[in-house]
């Protein structure tokens, strides 16, 4: 490995054949000169393995290598176009090194002030001290990851409700403590925003160019090229040159192919540098969300303005996953158990697509064409999603049923929409995940039976058996076919029950179940 800790803390002009990023207080440079003799660390090496294997910085732990335990959590300092720089807790096990190009990353080793004695409490970050004070560490193995999640929380300015503490920490598993002290530590530090060196760095931070084109030499599997274009022109050029290249956005799904299935990708095109995919704005109709906007950002900006989306995002992966995962990625993945497709289908989203030949818009109903298949052709790319506002006569919500509420994949998910004319169903959309091979499959027979009917419990109960005609779900470790069918039917009844409630749009921070079905006392 040819690794250089840059002597000058200011990054030099950004050569595309050099991977460079700030790691705590120093710059890491990995050069890949075209003549050879450069680094042999390839582009799909994860930050976690790089820290542990190449730098022997072992504070960051591997607990699962799939983004499901949080022991490897680190914090990215990011600046997106038109936004303030922010800290984001992310899973380093799913972060390819090129995704850090020109950015800054903090690990647990960077928090303690090493000019002071390790016995001096002043040497530690408030997130660290809070975990000591609440007795939040027992075996200590999940602790560095939890400290880094708390580090992000320390500088957040949007923590206003207690559920956000759990939301911040739901991507960090602990097997020892039972979480009570960890939750208390979260309450201590969230939103503290101390005037310290981290905040100063954050506020002055300016992201560097993410452009990259590196080729790692032959390993066991042969060479690997990793390209990170920053303009559409460069992107389409790269795709033309490498039609078989794999594309990666946040990497929360593709990363697993590397860490779990040990796949080798000869050419990778990263979308990290395409700022044009990160636009997000209010439109006359509702919202436009760029395909590359991460889901944490979507939650921050759109928030409860679109209750169905907000509800689903709270139960989507974890904070760490959402801070990397993109709306475009979740769509293009076209997984039948993806969480956003049913909501987007219920909302009636339009997908904006761009290819070298031009742009087009496709209704979400026409976007998914089969098991993990979409209507994308040639070199096309999803650039964003138009979400229309729900009319006042309509009610739209989302449901997710999984084995565990947080950080789990749904057994059954659904997005449901009903628009009423008086008490008659004008339009109803029932889009399910986990019930069929295609993402966001509609319960067409059930919808047809209800359309034009009075929106009554009797009508809904009469239509429920049709769900079984619409879907023949599979059985797996997330649930039997029988269970999935029962839940799918009951969610329809739950949708009706909710539609009758005055608080139907309210966000339930501590739900018993996905449906708001409880009453008073």
């Amino acid at each position, binding site marked *: 490995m040819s690794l250089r800790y840059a002597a000058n803390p200011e990054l030099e002009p950004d050569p595309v054949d050099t991977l460079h990023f700030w790691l705590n207080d120093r710059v890491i440079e990995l050069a890949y000169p075209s003549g050879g003799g450069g680094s042999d660390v390839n582009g799909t090496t994860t930050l976690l393995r790089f820290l542990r294997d190449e730098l022997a910085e072992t504070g960051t732990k591997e607990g699962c290598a799939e983004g499901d*335990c949080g022991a490897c959590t680190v914090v990215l300092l990011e600046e997106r176009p038109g936004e303030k720089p922010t800290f984001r807790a992310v899973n380093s096990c799913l972060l390819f090194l090129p995704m850090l190009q020109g950015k800054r990353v903090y690990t647990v080793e960077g928090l303690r002030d090493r000019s002071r004695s390790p016995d001096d409490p002043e040497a530690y970050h408030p997130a*660290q001290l809070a975990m000591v*004070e609440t007795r939040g560490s027992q*075996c200590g193995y999940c602790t560095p990851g939890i400290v880094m999640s708390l580090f992000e929380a320390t500088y957040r300015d949007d923590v206003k409700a207690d559920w956000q503490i759990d939301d911040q920490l739901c991507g960090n598993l602990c*097997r020892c403590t039972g979480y009570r002290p*960890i939750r208390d530590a979260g309450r201590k530090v969230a939103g503290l925003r101390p005037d310290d060196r981290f905040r100063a760095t954050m506020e002055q931070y300016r992201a560097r160019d993410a452009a990259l084109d590196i080729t790692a030499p032959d390993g066991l599997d042969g060479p690997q090229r990793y390209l990170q274009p920053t303009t559409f022109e460069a992107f389409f050029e790269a795709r033309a040159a490498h039609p078989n290249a794999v594309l990666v956005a946040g990497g929360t799904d593709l990363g697993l192919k590397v860490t779990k299935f040990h796949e080798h990708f000869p050419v990778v095109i990263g979308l990290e540098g395409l700022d044009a995919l990160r636009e997000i704005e209010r439109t006359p109709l509702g919202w436009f969300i760029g395909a590359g906007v991460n889901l944490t950002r979507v939650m921050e900006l759109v928030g409860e303005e679109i209750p169905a989306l907000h509800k689903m995002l709270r139960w989507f992966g974890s904070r760490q996953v959402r801070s990397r995962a993109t709306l475009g990625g979740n769509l293009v993945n076209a997984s039948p158990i993806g969480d956003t497709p049913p909501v987007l289908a219920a909302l009636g989203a339009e997908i904006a697509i761009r290819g070298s030949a031009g742009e087009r818009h496709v209704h979400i109903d026409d976007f998914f064409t089969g098991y993990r298949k979409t209507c994308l052709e040639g070199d096309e790319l999803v650039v964003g999603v138009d979400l229309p506002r729900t009319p006042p006569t309509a009610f739209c919500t989302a449901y997710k*049923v999984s084995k565990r509420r947080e950080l789990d994949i749904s*057994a059954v998910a659904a997005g449901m929409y009903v628009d009423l004319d008086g008490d008659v169903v004008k339009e109803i959309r029932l889009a399910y995940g986990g019930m069929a091979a295609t993402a966001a499959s509609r319960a067409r027979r059930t919808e047809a039976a209800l359309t034009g009917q009075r929106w009554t419990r009797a009508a809904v109960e009469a239509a429920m058996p049709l769900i079984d005609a619409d879907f023949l779900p599979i059985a797996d470790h997330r649930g039997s076919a029988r269970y999935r069918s029962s839940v799918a039917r009951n969610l329809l009844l739950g949708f009706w029950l909710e539609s009758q409630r005055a608080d139907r749009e309210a966000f339930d921070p501590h739900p018993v179940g996905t449906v708001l079905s409880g*009453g008073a006392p």
Partner: protein
Amino acid sequence: MKSPLGRGLPHESALRHVSGEARYVDDLPHPPGLLVGRVLGSSEPRGRITRRDRHRALAVPGVHAVFFAEDLPGSNNVGPVFHDEPLLAADQVFCVGMPIAFVVAESYPAARKAVEAIEVDITAAPAIPDIEAGIAAESFIGEPHVIERGNVGEALASAAHRLSGTLDSGGQDHFYLETHAALAIPGEDRSITVYSSTQHPSEVQTLVAEVLGWGRSRVTVECPRMGGGFGGKETQAAQWACLAAVAAVRTGRPVKVWLDRDSDMSFTGRRHPFHSTWEVAFDAEGRIQALSADLYSDAGWAADLSLAILDRGLFHMDNGYWLPNVRLRGNAVRTNRISNTAFRGFGGPQGMVVIERIVESIAEHLGLDPLEVRRRNFYADGNDRTPYGQQVRDFRLHRIVDELAERADLAERKARVAAFNAANEWRKRGIALTPVKFGISFTTSFLNQAGAYVLLYGDGTVQLNHGGTEMGQGLYTKMLQVCSHALGAPLQDIVHAHTSTAKVPNTSATAASSGSDLNGQAVASACRQLVERLKPVAAELLGCAVDALELAPENDGEIPEKGGRPAWAWSGGASVTLAEVASAAYLRQIQLAAAGYYRTPDIAYDRKAGKGKPFHYFAYGAAVSEVEVDGLTGEWRLHRVDIVHDVGESLSEDIDKGQVEGAFVQGLGWLTWEELVFDDRGWLVTHSPSTYKIPAIGDIPSEFHVHLLERAAQDDVIYGSKAVGEPPFMLAISAHTAIGRAVSAFAEGGRHVAVSIPATNEAILTAVEQARKR
């Protein structure tokens, strides 16, 4: 300045935990020339190996060696109790994943490719997939364990009321955050040092020595700390250490074995699933008159600790209840699955859920308040012998339950739950109080011994060693507090050394909740020896008689200071510090190191007779849980938990509270979310956290009140404390019981409907549908 004993201190490594500076085995700096290892496991649940070929594997660049059974220099056996576990299968395989070959290479990718390149042919044979098939085939390990008292047949026949049933409980993966790891570094003259993430360094040492064909004195095993153990590293760390050691000796290079999460979950044993059948007789007041029950555990393919785990299952079939006529039978079923192993509670939870289900059924059958039925059946004067004949002394459940019912506002909340249920169609709540009585000691009596080695240096600083291992439970913290108290040394002057077989030999596993009971006595014993040696020196320095000394050791009062340091001894107005006494003692040629030792008195059990006193004492606790169940999806939430738990006089309050909370939540996982799913051949399908769901932060109640029982000193245990590791695990039964009651509230008239263990959302919805149907 005061003794730190009993104070709520942070974990001794807390600052290193939060700064990432605490090192685990996989974090140790890589020695030059390090190779890494990976195992090839059997693809068949049962069969005969007909061919093995490693040529293609050896051709993978970076591969140094591929080991088969015949390459092991010593014994090919790592069974901890019975020698029934080959390290590498030679001719027969008994489960999928059973190791057949071991590869060492310069990198994990190379080792992985080599494993894929090994050719193995296996002629498959019929396999036993589960308990049911094992019972049918009479595939048992050892003899059945029978515990019997009175005339069960007669009592069952003549009783006013009888009920019978079955109950199955599922397995559980330990999911310690740190997976198994071992690093073996060969030394000179046939010696080796193995760093192992193990709860049992002495056993790892023994098995490494046997596999190498060496004496144990050539093998040093050190455990720096573990990132969680929970029983999963009691026996099952040894195989990885042995493989690393063999490869290190054969290649002459350091070798590391570290399991990724999927391998760890797939290749190592878990909590035993149990199947039970029972028949109970009781009077009109709900008093149990007779119980007959059969327990069957899924041991997997090898014995491991299965018999002791089964024993503990039977020992906890009474929980806190007097069973006048009783017949308990236990069988460990040999199946073609990964060999199951110790897990917090060690069979106790699997036994206790059965009796709690029985008591619940009795109350429902008679229409009585379940708590009242529990109280009526509690041990009492005269009715104070367990089924195996041990007298229950100092039974604390009456007191605990009364205090808890008050603290939890139980009566008032029961009424609120009933009102909620009457007002809601699709949501029902349940509230339940369940008690725990848990026996403390290794039930294999000779294991109840421990050693310590306390080194006092001439400057008054101390190095503390004992045989116990640190896995997050806070043992090191407690031992530092015990050492500080017993020796009169300030905490900051004591360094806790990593557990090593080179410091304290012939130790028992840190298991059975016994860590601080056993090692605490050994540490205190070593400290007392040092104190006795130092007293005359202090008296000489102070110019007084030994009898006239006032001492810091075991002093609960205020310790005076001398020059900003705590005094160690004082008399009149004069005092000396430990540094002064230690330095003076050294000059007077007095030995400043002491070995401490402890064995638990008065325990013995005769398994053949089913009689004896297996436990030094019992630990107690009780919990109230309130849940709400959604009848549309089977989802649920735990709203509130109240616990009163008995830890005696706590050695370290915050550590004990942390154990109670953590154990409760882990028990909750076992009873609800954590479901192990296997394919037809026995491969675990749920082998990572994406599919195996341990509790996450949002699953714990917003109201979680833990109260440690006051005025609770326990006789004849270190400084009046009690063991705490396992007992609170079973407090979670209250939550499962509450789920059962909420589900029953969906039925007309609240008829009791059983909910499976684990009570997944699917299991709950199935039960709700059943409740709503009739």
